[in-house]
């Protein structure tokens, strides 16, 4: 079964054709980062405009390569969570196509796509596992017993970790999206004389809070202003250390609490080198296995949606009647596969 996946929840237009039988995958990805850079963040209206201009031509190209529309056995799209207007573009395109081709249609949970993205790698994890989802829009720890059986262990009460990276980078004068640039700046020094707080590690829960860290960075900058290159790098380093250590502490706690021996890290922040190293050390010490999706599946993409949707379509799930998108949608509302 060949499933077309359409992802337009934020600022990436992602399309993929995934063959559930062979595991074969073709995909297209268009990132809008350049368009949003001058505004210092994603502008929802511009994101929607780009999706509607790019998605159909990209889809035509993908289908030409795959042998035409006849190659499609089912269509899935990101139903949420995400930007309402952006979600509507992918959902409408999917709906129009499904009607024309008379193929089954299903809306997919964006975060389920991220949770299952490691299944597309050469060394997929087995269930059950604990997943850390860290991106510009989300920070959460989820216990994954099986597809559709998710328990939210903890999440950010304010800024997502990637958002905290981007905002702190912006304060440091780095261009959007500043997360990777902040990490590169931090890497120019071996250590920092500054110490940033580790938010919420002294309480038992698994929730996160990162907005205070950004404010701490701002206060530090104001105290040390005007900043030279070295102090900028030291601020970046201290910030990154605090984030990485906090995530490490919470991941260890989550593995122990859920009684799992596997940790899966997904989302764009999963590309951070120091986070990978720290989680690697933690997992070794805990005797746990650690999995990262391929870098191309860490950020938003169509392949993860096609995969998650294909598994659900194969289990007989379909969109019924009312058609809507879900800008806010909890993972725990999802149904397990039969």
């Amino acid at each position, binding site marked *: 079964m060949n499933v077309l996946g359409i992802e337009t929840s934020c600022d990436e237009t992602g399309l993929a054709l995934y063959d559930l039988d062979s595991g074969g995958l073709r995909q297209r990805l268009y990132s809008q980062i350049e368009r949003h850079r*001058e*505004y*210092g963040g994603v*502008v929802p*209206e*511009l994101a*929607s*405009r780009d999706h*509607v*201009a790019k*998605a*159909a*031509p990209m*889809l*035509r190209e993908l*289908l030409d390569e795959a042998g035409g*529309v006849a190659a499609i056995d089912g269509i899935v799209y990101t139903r949420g969570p995400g930007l*309402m*207007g952006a979600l*509507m*573009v*992918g*959902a*409408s*395109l*999917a*709906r*129009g*196509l*499904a*009607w*024309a*081709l*008379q193929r089954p249609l299903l809306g997919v949970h964006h975060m389920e796509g991220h949770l299952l993205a490691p299944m597309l790698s050469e060394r997929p994890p087995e269930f059950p596992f604990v997943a850390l989802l860290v991106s510009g829009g989300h920070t959460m720890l989820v216990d994954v017993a099986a597809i559709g059986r998710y328990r939210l262990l903890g999440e950010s009460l304010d800024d997502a970790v990637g958002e905290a990276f981007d905002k702190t980078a*912006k*304060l*440091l*004068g780095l261009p959007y999206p500043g997360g990777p640039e902040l990490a590169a700046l931090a890497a120019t020094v071996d250590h920092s004389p500054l110490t940033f707080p580790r938010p919420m590690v002294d309480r038992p829960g698994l929730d996160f809070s990162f907005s205070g860290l950004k404010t701490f960075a701002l206060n530090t*900058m*104001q105290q*040390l*202003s*005007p*900043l030279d290159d070295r102090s900028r790098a030291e601020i970046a380093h201290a910030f990154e250390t605090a984030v990485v250590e906090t995530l490490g502490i919470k991941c260890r706690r989550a593995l122990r609490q859920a009684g799992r021996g596997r940790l899966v890290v997904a989302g764009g922040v999963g590309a951070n080198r120091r986070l990978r190293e720290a989680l690697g050390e933690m997992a070794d010490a805990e005797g746990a296995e650690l999995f990262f999706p391929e870098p191309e599946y860490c950020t938003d993409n169509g392949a993860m949606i096609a995969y998650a949707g294909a598994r659900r379509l194969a289990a007989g799930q379909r969109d019924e009647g009312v058609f809507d998108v879900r800008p806010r949608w909890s993972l725990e509302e999802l149904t397990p596969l039969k």
Partner: protein
Amino acid sequence: MLDAVLHEAALTRAELDRVAFANGPGAFTGVRIAAATAQGIALGLQIPLIGVSTLAVLAQQVADSRGLDAVQSMIDARMDEAYVGLYRRDAAGILRLQGEERLLPLDALRCPGAVYCAGSALRALEAAGLPVPEGDADALPDAAALARIAGHLAAQGAGGDEAPINYLRNRVAVRKTPTVY
């Protein structure tokens, strides 16, 4: 709704030759829903796509229902502005744009001569306490008028893989200069 229209017309999907949509101006998300749905249908059925101005569709609908030869479409664009276009009927019966479609402040709206005006901007004028020209504030663009225009365009060979959206309002984001410490 798509199934119901085809059923009523006793047509199958495979018998469709073109798919047309109103490509703006208007509510951004609404226009994009129509555009993306039409794109999906065009791709699936492998037929050309035709985009027609929302203002043209409104003018056609009002002119045909009232037996007029000219209509000025005026759609409320919020923020004290309106999308405006003047249309006149050609020999084939299609309402053709005169000059350009424009985004104008409400207080700059004028009705040339005794042209009949139509669209939600009339209500916005009234709410703003501005003079309201003769016209129909409740008129809405409808799919039948869209299909009449698109059918005529298709007969002339119009249609293609792409049909861009005409937003008219393109200042939708503000650049910020960050503070540097």
